[in-house]
């Protein structure tokens, strides 16, 4: 336990970014959180291309991935991660407002690790996201060979 690996948050809604960061701070998680605002940037980050060409090596310990985003959707990002030998074992947790069965089914079919529906209620949102952060940042052991 007690890792401090990087979390990649892929979310286009600014309010949700803010709420998520607040929730992640709740248990004093020391993990660095990198925020990108759409699927294209997420793939650039992961592949160290485009604006992330110069970033240091290493994969995040978990990716928190929204589904409905401009340019490249969350499911497309997930699909590309799972078909890339360098990226395919990174834990991906979908965090979305969609509780539609086809989205849940497709995400699991593509190999998502977990699927979190954003609760509408503020307090419930904080609870859900903070427990998500605690599990994935502290309790889960990520695949070996990730950035420290």
């Amino acid at each position, binding site marked *: *336990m007690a890792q401090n690996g990087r979390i990649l948050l892929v979310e286009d809604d600014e309010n949700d970014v803010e709420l998520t960061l607040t929730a992640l701070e709740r248990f004093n998680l020391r993990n660095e959180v990198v925020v990108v605002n759409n699927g294209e940037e997420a793939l650039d980050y992961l592949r160290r291309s485009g604006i992330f060409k110069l970033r240091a090596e290493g994969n995040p310990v978990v990716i928190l991935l929204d589904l409905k985003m401009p340019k490249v959707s969350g499911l497309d990002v997930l699909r590309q991660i799972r078909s890339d030998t360098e990226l395919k*074992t990174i*834990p991906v947790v979908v965090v979305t407002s969609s*509780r539609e*069965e086809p989205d*849940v*089914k497709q995400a*699991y*079919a593509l*190999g998502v*690790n*977990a*699927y*979190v*529906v954003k*609760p509408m209620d503020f307090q*419930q949102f904080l*609870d*859900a996201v903070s*427990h*998500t952060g*605690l*599990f*994935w940042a*502290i*309790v*889960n*052991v*990520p*695949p*070996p060979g990730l950035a420290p």
Partner: protein
Amino acid sequence: MKEINSRILLVEDEEADIELITNALQQFQMINGMDVAKDGEQALNYLFRRAEYAQRESADPVLVLLDLKMPKVNGIEVLQAMKSDSNLKTIPVVIVTSSRENPDIRTCYELGVNAYVVKPVDFREFTEAIRNVGLFWLLVNQIPKLN
């Protein structure tokens, strides 16, 4: 968060660990029912409704907590069988093991494990970790509707 309606399958051969995990989850009333398989073979019989479980009527579990080092069939073989079965592959599998060896961790991720938890040696930390496993996997995580 979701309604609590969850049956889980714990695959574990250590009596002490079964007790600890059961208590950690029951303490927070996070499970309606838990079934325990003491080795990988029993787990596969349960999941595939074979042998002593041929008449099993309960719904499939919403979560499988899976030890790695077990007699007969080990955890990695159970994981492999589940993730290559079209009906069982969407059931979340969380490894709960004392092994923090990289080859085990890597193999599990390559086979599509949902998460990998190393049992803390300290009793209180172990209970805390399992409590968090319950909070996330039983209350927060959403799975596809079971058939």
